[in-house]
């Protein structure tokens, strides 16, 4: 833009030799960069394409070396949906992910708000503990947690041991929201307080509307976390197929139809598709969330 404005009008019609080589170099660079981009795009996209193509093959063709289906077997998807349990797993996943997301956001928001905007002793220590919890592999505490839920509360075979803890602030969500809330200027909060708002009203009426992108990012991450979770359902729900989630059940699908790559891939598509669909509607919130995790707080 500035280049166009700076350049005298007369020169535009007749480029000097130096300018011509510069332009040629720019064009070559454009071609190089974009060819590299297409090559990278193939690496990222081809696995999806092959999975989709195989999901539409006939049983016998899925076992061959063909890459493209001869006949398009849309019925594969119906077969997967008709598999006993598949719709139950779908429902369980929605309950786990949906309820978990609501609980996480509702319990993490006040904590993040306190960590971002209150001054109190032990604040830095609390934040450090939140970050440590966030970095901890779930396997570190799984033995006592399992014994607690299964032996003391008799809740194994259900997803409740995974859902209930989400009502007590999730470390990653607290951290992400806190990063977001520190960017909201204190003047807005002070103005609300001067007008006589209590802390809770300030949070709900002033902070929540301003923090909507951050809340959306946290909700999405939590939803996908539950959707993708394999370890949690494996520990608590494995003994009861009625409590399995899609991520956990998907693998059993492979077992039940053990050489049927076409049906297995159709099931894989059905587990991936909602995530990708949601992403297209909420791209901005997602990318913003990823960026926030990588930026200094």
């Amino acid at each position, binding site marked *: 833009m500035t280049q166009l404005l700076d350049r005298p009008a007369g020169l535009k019609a007749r480029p000097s030799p130096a300018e011509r080589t510069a332009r040629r170099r720019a064009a070559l660079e454009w071609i190089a960069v974009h060819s590299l981009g297409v090559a990278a795009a193939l690496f990222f996209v081809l696995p999806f394409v092959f999975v989709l193509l195989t999901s539409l093959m006939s049983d016998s063709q899925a076992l061959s070396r063909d890459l493209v289906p001869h006949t398009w077997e849309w019925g594969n998807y119906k077969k997967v949906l008709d598999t006993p349990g598949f719709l139950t797993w779908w429902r369980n996943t929605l309950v786990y992910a949906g309820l978990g997301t609501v609980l996480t956001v509702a*319990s993490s928001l006040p904590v993040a708000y306190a960590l971002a905007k209150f001054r109190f002793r032990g604040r830095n220590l609390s934040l450090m503990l939140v970050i440590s919890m966030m970095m901890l592999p779930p396997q570190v505490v799984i*033995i006592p947690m399992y014994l607690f839920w299964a032996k003391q509360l008799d809740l194994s075979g259900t997803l409740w041991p995974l859902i209930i803890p989400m009502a007590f602030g999730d470390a990653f969500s607290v951290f992400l929201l806190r990063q977001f809330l520190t960017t909201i200027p204190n003047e807005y909060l002070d103005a609300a307080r001067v007008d006589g708002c209590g802390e809770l009203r300030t949070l709900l009426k002033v902070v929540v509307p301003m923090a909507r992108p951050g809340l959306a990012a946290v909700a999405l991450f939590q939803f996908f976390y539950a959707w993708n979770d394999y370890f949690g359902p494996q520990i608590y729900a494995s003994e009861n197929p009625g409590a399995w989630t899609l*991520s956990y059940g998907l693998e059993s699908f492979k077992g039940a139809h053990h050489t049927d790559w076409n049906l297995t891939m159709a099931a894989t598509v059905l587990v991936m598709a909602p995530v990708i669909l949601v992403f297209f509607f909420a791209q901005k919130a997602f990318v913003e969330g990823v960026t926030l995790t990588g930026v200094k707080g």
Partner: protein
Amino acid sequence: MTTITLASKRRRSALKTLAFMSPWLIGFAVFFAYPLISTVYFSFMHYDGFGPPTWRGTRNWTYVFQSYPLFWPALRNTLWLVLVMVTLRVVFGLGVGLLITRIRTGTGVFRTLFYLPYLAPPVAATMAFAFLLNPGTGPVNSLLERVGIPAPGWFGDPTWSKPALTMLALWGVGDLMVIFMAALLDVPTEQYEAAELDGASPWQRFRYVTLPNISPIVMFAVVTGVIQTMQYYTQPLIAGKVASGVIQGAGTQFEPGYPERSTLTLPQLVYNLGFQRFEYGPACVVALVLFALSMVFTAFLMRRRGGLIQAGD
């Protein structure tokens, strides 16, 4: 008019803080502090889930380090994954990040395509790769054989199973791409212009302008990558299960780390010891090793000065 004393005001503000922090305080006590202390307790006990736990002293520890055949292979695999998988992911993520900042046409489309695999649920992504890299009929080997390259056994071959997992990890590099892209766009353009005036080559510009500016983010990517490797569970487990043909729920015992322990990770050992063999004591020992390793890297991430995640404002 009632006067509010300073002390009561302070008490009210402390109560307010406590009220807002309470969900996490309860969660921290019940789901972190208590189980962590219990893990230490169980690491010294004999307990199989039936009857009361009995004292076992340090024998769980010596068992894990000296007699349990899977511990050292798992630690070695972790080291391999840290060195190879994390390094390649950071280099590749930076490369893709650089590429996307250079792309002028269709940026949005390219960025979305590069990012999508990161979203694929780990189980689904691993199933997809187990199929793509399936030695018999998988598309990758079909293509390789068509161009006359000898096709590896991937997830079924101990020398190729970790490289196959690395490819899967590179496919899902979208998160790093986004972080690097944000960092690259933040590098002041004046510095590039100054370097160009000084006659710096593209490589010199990258080495002396780009890298120093984004080095905190590179470190962040490395350390979080290492921490993620400490939690690496679903992908190696599923890859091993699919490749070995184990059927879920059919009572078949899965051989951890198939093939030949090559995909074994520490989190898988906790599962194997605790939930397949019901040896809760040794399982807690492995859990504590995992805890110690994770905390070392987390501390690195939060060191007071020059830390990558800073607590204070």
